[in-house]
């Protein structure tokens, strides 16, 4: 429709604005030829001045030839207005040859005048007037005589004025017509552009829609595929508005039964919610409508991620332990719109943990009982006064005893590590002066250090340092660090035990001049069963539990472990413990 309109407009503009010079010239050429033929054949007419008439026809012929050339060479088109000007001279000459002022063919002048006048620009009205005047005066110009008859020169001036007026009207009409055409064309183009934009927009819309559909399919697929986790969405008051198949599997109700009907706290143990609310000190000055729900979403409401264990109550009243993470749902402006509750059933994980504890206990018992027999009977052999052993046999016995003790220690370490992991790490905490622990640790390490040819240095401050802790465990931690340092230091080296006391902290450091630890291994050092490359390369005995245990003890005392090391230079372990505010009298 629009393209049809634009085609019509274009066609008009072609015909009106851009007819070729040859087409425009054809009217004048045909009129002059017709006039010449009529003059020749009609009795009573005839040429009054044959040379003038012939030169007029020649000029018109030349102009027509020129129009054909201009039409052929488009770049010459801007000179096309020369043609009507030449025509005017030709017609003037023809008129002079066909009766001068009395010529019948004066009217032909109108044809080039219209051509000129229709050109764009008001100056062409003047060109038309001047051209007409010159054409009408041509007989006089040719004979170089001023017209004797007053009518002749009046005609030379008056007629051009009339022609100029006609030219002005034609010019104006042409102008208007051009203007209209231009605006029709502009409108058509605008419409075309709008259509183009609409098409593009529609394509974009379709693309986003197909993207949205793909995303929607993906989301629905994921939502339906999550069957092992319960995913529940609620509004800001806890009313369920999204319920996935996992929630149905873990809790019972279907999405239809839960959405817009049930509240998330319907699935929580009221006691647990109450405990948590109390933990968070509700009501905290302000009135909380539903302390349980507020406690449940408190961390998420503050924009933090939270994951903790809760007990869900199923539709049938049975309980299921879950690991639940709560996150906030926000709208485009960042306002809280509700919460998302993602929970995993941890019944199995708890059962596994329980079985592990049981297994560790059993293993510990089953390993310690035969070790008790081995050590007991070895001792009976050693103590048998009726059958004393030879020196050699006593030596063999020593090896067996030493290895049985090694096995016993390993069992103890494993059991202790398991206790730490399951969070069952008993601390018999009391107020303890550190000096005693450090002194006895260094004294008990001295025989081993002497045998290994290592100097033990103790560097303790005069001021007492008192911590709140389990003296046995703290002693075990320091013993571990010192025996490690001795193991990893070659003969002739030094192990220094130091204590630094600040306002609120005690820093115990054990520094050696040993083989050191690679930088890349420092962060793995405290992991269970990890052994440094320097340890395995130098065949230093151990299983990789000592530092794990040491760190667990320090952490249980709210302290921190640190390590600095340089390969081939030495290592320095530090234990930072908070000082007890209570100072016991000396």
């Amino acid at each position: 429709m629009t393209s049809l309109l634009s085609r019509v407009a274009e066609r008009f503009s072609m015909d009106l604005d851009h007819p070729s010079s040859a087409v425009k010239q054809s009217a004048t050429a045909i009129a002059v030829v017709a006039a010449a033929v009529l003059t020749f054949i009609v009795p009573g007419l005839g040429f009054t001045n044959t040379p003038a008439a012939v030169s007029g026809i020649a000029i018109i012929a030349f102009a027509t030839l020129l129009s054909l050339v201009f039409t052929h060479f488009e770049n010459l088109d801007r000179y096309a207005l020369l043609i009507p000007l030449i025509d005017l001279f030709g017609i003037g000459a023809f008129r002079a040859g066909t009766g001068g002022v009395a010529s019948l063919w004066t009217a032909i002048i109108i044809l080039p005048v219209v051509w000129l006048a229709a050109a764009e620009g008001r100056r062409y009205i003047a060109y038309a007037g001047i051209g007409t005047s010159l054409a009408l005066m041509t007989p006089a110009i040719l004979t170089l005589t001023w017209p004797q008859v007053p009518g002749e020169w009046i005609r030379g001036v008056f007629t051009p004025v009339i022609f100029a007026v006609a030219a002005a009207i034609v010019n104006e009409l042409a102008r208007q017509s051009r203007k209209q055409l231009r605006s029709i064309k502009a409108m058509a183009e605008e419409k075309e552009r709008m259509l183009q934009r609409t098409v593009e927009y529609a394509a974009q819309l379709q693309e986003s829609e197909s993207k949205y559909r793909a995303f929607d399919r993906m989301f629905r697929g994921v939502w339906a595929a999550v069957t092992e986790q319960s995913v529940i969405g609620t509004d800001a008051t806890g009313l369920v508005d999204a319920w996935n198949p996992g929630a149905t599997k873990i809790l019972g109700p279907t999405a239809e039964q839960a959405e817009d009907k049930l509240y998330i706290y319907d699935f929580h143990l009221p006691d647990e919610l109450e405990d948590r609310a109390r933990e968070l000190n509700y009501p905290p000055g302000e009135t909380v409508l539903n302390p349980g729900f507020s406690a449940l979403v408190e961390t998420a409401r503050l924009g933090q991620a939270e994951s903790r264990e809760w007990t869900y109550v199923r539709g049938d009243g049975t309980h299921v332990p879950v690991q639940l993470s709560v996150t906030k749902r926000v709208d485009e402006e960042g306002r809280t719109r509700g919460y998302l509750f993602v929970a995993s059933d941890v019944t199995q994980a708890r059962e596994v943990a329980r079985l592990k504890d049981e297994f560790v206990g059993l293993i510990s018992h089953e390993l310690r009982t035969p070790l008790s027999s081995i050590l007991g009977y070895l001792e009976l052999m050693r103590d048998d006064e009726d059958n004393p052993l030879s020196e050699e046999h006593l030596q063999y016995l020593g090896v067996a005893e030493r290895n049985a003790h090694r096995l016993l220690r390993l069992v103890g370490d494993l059991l202790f590590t398991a206790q730490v992991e399951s969070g069952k790490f008993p601390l018999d905490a009391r107020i303890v002066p550190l000096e005693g622990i450090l002194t006895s640790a260094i004294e008990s390490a001295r025989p081993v250090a002497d045998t290994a040819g290592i100097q033990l240095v103790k560097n303790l401050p005069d001021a007492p340092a008192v911590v709140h802790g389990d003296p046995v465990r703290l002693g075990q931690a320091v013993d571990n660090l010192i025996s490690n340092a001795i193991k990893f230091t070659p003969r002739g080296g030094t192990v220094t035990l130091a204590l630094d006391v600040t306002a609120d902290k005690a820093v115990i450091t054990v520094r050696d001049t040993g083989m050191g630890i690679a930088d890349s291994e420092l962060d793995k050092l405290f992991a269970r069963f990890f052994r440094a490359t320097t340890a395995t390369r130098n065949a230093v005995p151990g299983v990789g539990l000592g530092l794990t245990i040491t760190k667990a003890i320090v952490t249980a005392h709210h302290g921190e472990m640190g390590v600095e090391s340089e390969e081939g230079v030495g290592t320095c372990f530090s234990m930072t413990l908070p000082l007890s505010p209570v100072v016991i009298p000396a």
Partner: protein
Amino acid sequence: MSATVIVADDDQDIRSLVSIAVTKAGLTLLASVSNGALALDAIREHHPDLAILDVSMPEMTGLEVCRAARADDSVGDLRILLLSASVDEHSQSIGIEAGADYFLAKPFSPRELASWLSVGKEAR
């Protein structure tokens, strides 16, 4: 007359080890049994001065025997030593709560057990 003892442990080797220590200490071993139920029977039958009981035993645990013996008026004046392979710090206090007088963790030194028993003998 030396003090009388019964020993109960499901592990025969440990039982023998304890028996040797008892004999070395100069005490009279009245019975050596392999489970808790037999231990309680032996206590009721022999009225020993001391019962050395392993904590984890079939039929009845050492703790159960302890409670049953303390609840039984016919048992009279009995000292109980519990033996345990557990390193859990709580096991000792649980044992004392159940009515045991002494607690000994495995592995133990038979030499030390014997000397402790002989001191006990003197004290009685």
